[in-house]
């Protein structure tokens, strides 16, 4: 008996010992074979691999025009370029990307024309289906037309009224039926959503379905492999037009569990991770030796929208009463406050986008709705609801939604408003609120400019269910259409900003929606990870790994 037990334990120990042995070194990166002669003579070194874990469960798609989830956007950011790009680490500045320079628009026959001169020598990634080839205006035109087609892009709506044509191999002309300012035009051709340029020959070789898991662009990293539920591996693009990346590879891992990502980072299995959007977590991780936490924009804005077409919210006094009963500090406390969550006073966040209202501006106008329960109760009584009323809402199960809803529930209870919350899964909530079931909607979103925010949330065409193009106008508001449309075609940036501000002042005056807070991005990394740029705000919602990113182990 004892011998049998001993044998069993020995067998297990042997298994463990075999596993304990150091793993074999990874295969060198393909790019290493083409390294300069001097490097070949040097002693072979370990490939520089950055291992990053995101909170996603798996890949969705690597077609940038369908990339909606953060993890998919991150990969698109590393593999593709656009005509212009947001400066790495700073989403408030545009700079040329595939284009040689940022063009000035011309007006021809009442239409606005933007002419882009392309860089020469930009190479599409080589793949098993297509060899590397030079990107030309043919790829750019075809790619932007793909973005405008709802069958091949999720962002087709952004490209209505746009005509793209190639003047020669390196010149692309974009004509807009309706002139718009640079601040509204550049996001359409920037490295975000539909602006990414896809290599046509490869797309046509593998087809739409194939491209989702076998992409080819011109970015600093090329697709190497995809292991379902595990990782996507990208390798350095030796022919990248800004120079070969310092990293040999990026391992982009799918780890939805925060504990696993945290332990993976601490144990050294990972170099950087997507963190937790809570200030307590940031403080705790910052205390770990050799680990730093970066907190940066862009911040997704949480806003409360009131449906002004239903009773009792059709009465502005009721909406104002609710605003006076709410306290941004209480919402903020649920996320641990700054630096992760910060207060916001207009639907367009002034910190990240032109056209937003600052705290000082709102306070000066007396539209900050500082908490005043007596005033709230008086307004309710004046509106005919001295004892309050009941409302039923659905909330997503996600904390970013459920926390604001439950906090609002507790705060409104103090003025007699009984908010009944039904929790549903996130995707169902999106479906239900678009069917207009919620009299009050909490919505957390980032949009690339003030026009998109205002159009999609407050233009009458965007009213849920009944609008001409139903979208996310949950408040059924129709009062700022003229301002939104006038601002969209305004060429003077200062005047444009003033119009956006005016529109938002009107929203606050009529208390159409109550902006609560924005939540920044949180990433933790080992100190030896150098992203190569300062992190202020990143639209791709990760630290951005590019040719300058390196590991100084």
């Amino acid at each position: 008996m004892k011998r049998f037990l001993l044998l069993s334990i020995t067998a297990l120990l042997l298994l463990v010992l075999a596993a304990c042995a150091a793993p074999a070194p990874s295969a060198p990166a393909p790019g290493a074979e083409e390294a300069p002669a001097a490097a070949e003579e040097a002693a072979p070194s370990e490939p520089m691999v950055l291992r990053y874990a995101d909170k996603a469960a798996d890949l969705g798609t690597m077609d940038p025009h369908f990339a909606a989830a953060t993890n998919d956007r991150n990969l698109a950011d590393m593999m593709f370029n656009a005509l212009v790009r947001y400066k790495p680490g700073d989403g408030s500045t545009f700079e040329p990307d595939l284009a040689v320079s940022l063009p000035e628009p011309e007006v021809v026959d009442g239409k606005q024309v933007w002419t882009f001169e392309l860089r020469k020598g930009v190479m599409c990634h080589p793949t098993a289906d297509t060899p590397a080839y030079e990107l030309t205006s043919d790829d750019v035109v075809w790619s932007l037309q793909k973005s405008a087609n709802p069958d091949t892009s999720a962002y087709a709506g952004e490209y209505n009224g746009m005509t793209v044509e190639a003047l020669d191999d390196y010149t692309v002309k974009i004509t807009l039926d309706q002139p718009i300012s640079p601040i509204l035009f550049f996001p359409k051709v920037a490295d975000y959503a539909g602006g990414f340029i896809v290599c046509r020959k490869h797309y046509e070789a593998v087809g739409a379905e194939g491209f989702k898991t076998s992409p080819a662009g011109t970015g600093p990293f090329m697709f190497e492999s995809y292991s379902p539920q595990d990782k996507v591996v990208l390798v350095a693009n030796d022919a990248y037009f800004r120079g070969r990346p310092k990293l040999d590879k990026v391992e982009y891992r799918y780890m939805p569990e925060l504990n696993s990502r945290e332990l993976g980072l601490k144990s050294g299995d990972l170099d950087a991770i997507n963190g937790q959007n809570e200030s307590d977590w940031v403080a705790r991780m910052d205390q770990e030796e050799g680990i730093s936490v970066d907190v940066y924009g862009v911040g997704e804005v949480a806003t409360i929208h009131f449906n002004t077409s239903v009773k009792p919210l059709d009465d502005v006094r009721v909406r104002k009463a609710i605003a006076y009963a709410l306290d941004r500090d209480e919402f903020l406390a649920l996320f641990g406050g700054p630096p992760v969550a910060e207060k916001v006073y207009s639907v367009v966040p002034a910190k990240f986008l032109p056209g937003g209202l600052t705290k000082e501006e709102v306070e000066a106008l007396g539209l900050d709705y500082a908490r005043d329960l007596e005033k709230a109760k008086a307004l309710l009584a004046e509106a005919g609801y001295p004892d309050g009323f009941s409302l039923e809402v659905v909330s997503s199960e996600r904390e970013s939604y459920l926390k604001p809803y439950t906090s609002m529930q507790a705060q409104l209870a103090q003025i007699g408003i009984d908010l009944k919350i039904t929790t549903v899964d996130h995707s169902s909530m999106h479906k239900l609120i678009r069917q207009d079931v919620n009299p009050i909607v909490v919505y957390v979103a980032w949009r690339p400019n003030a026009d998109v925010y205002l159009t999609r949330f407050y233009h009458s065409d965007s009213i849920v269910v009944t609008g001409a193009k139903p979208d996310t106008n949950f408040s059924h508001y129709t009062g700022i259409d003229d301002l939104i449309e006038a601002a969209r075609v305004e060429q003077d940036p200062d005047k444009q900003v003033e119009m956006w501000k005016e529109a938002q002042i009107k929203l606050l005056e009529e208390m159409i929606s109550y902006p609560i807070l924005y939540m920044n991005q949180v990433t933790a990394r080992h100190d030896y990870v150098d992203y190569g740029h300062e992190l202020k705000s990143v639209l791709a919602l990760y630290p951005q790994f590019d040719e300058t990113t390196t590991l100084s182990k």
Partner: protein
Amino acid sequence: MARYIASRLLLAVPTVLAVLTLVFFVVRVIPGDPATAALGDYASQEAVEALRERMGLNDPLYVQYFRFLSDLVRGDLGKSMITGKEISELVRQVLPYTLELTITSIFIGAILGVPIGIYTARHVNTSIDYAGRVGSLAGLSVPAFYLGILIMLLFAYKIQLFPAVGGGDLKDLRSNLSHLVLPALTLGLIMTASVTRLTRSAMLNVLKDDYVRTARAKGLSEQVVVFRHALRAALVPIVSIIGIWAASLVADSVLTETVFARPGLGKMLVSAILQRDYTLLQSVMVIYALFVVGINLVTDIIYSFVDPRITH
């Protein structure tokens, strides 16, 4: 024996069909829209509608059901609604990870649980017996994900003996084994607890039987009495519990694979639910169901070898 196996196989057919039907409808009862989940809230309504059409979600439910059944009968699991990849290819890539985890865990559970169970039964009410009972009770009480995190903290973070996360490279034995140890230990320890308890109680019953006393009276050595006479009779419930645990380990692997960030069927199931990938979700559930049906079948067959009376 052949007739017995054939009857078991035939019985599995309606079971599998019932499971397939249930899986198809359960998947569609899950709230949420795959097209919206895939494209996110920034996508235009036009694009969402176009995707729904391409996904075949606008077809009547019965059309989708018969398409699902006919594809399955032809051995075609279809394509993932989200990534567009062949599901058979996706499953082929992750199945080895789940199989190696399940098999190693069963191995650990059996190789530790049976001897500990026998030993504690033979030394009943001693300190070793008490320790075994407390240990197995603790093992049964601790959820797999929690034990996994504790094991990860100890062996990957404090001692740094094994990697914390990932599945390793299947082509590199060392890398693969080093990534397998901690998750296998997690599931194996939980199974050990159950097998230990059952083996102990089965052996306690058998050791009191007359034929065991007779064997001892005949002067047979204790080793022969325990292994040749008592253990053989106790094997039926032990095989039964190992079979049940093998099936539940497949379910436990969902949590373990998520905690250890290992690729596998469990993690695939979770991601298919999160992404509302109907085709992938129903395929993975079908594979799980077939797995359980298969394990039950194998258990039944092993029964018949351990105790031939069962075939009658």
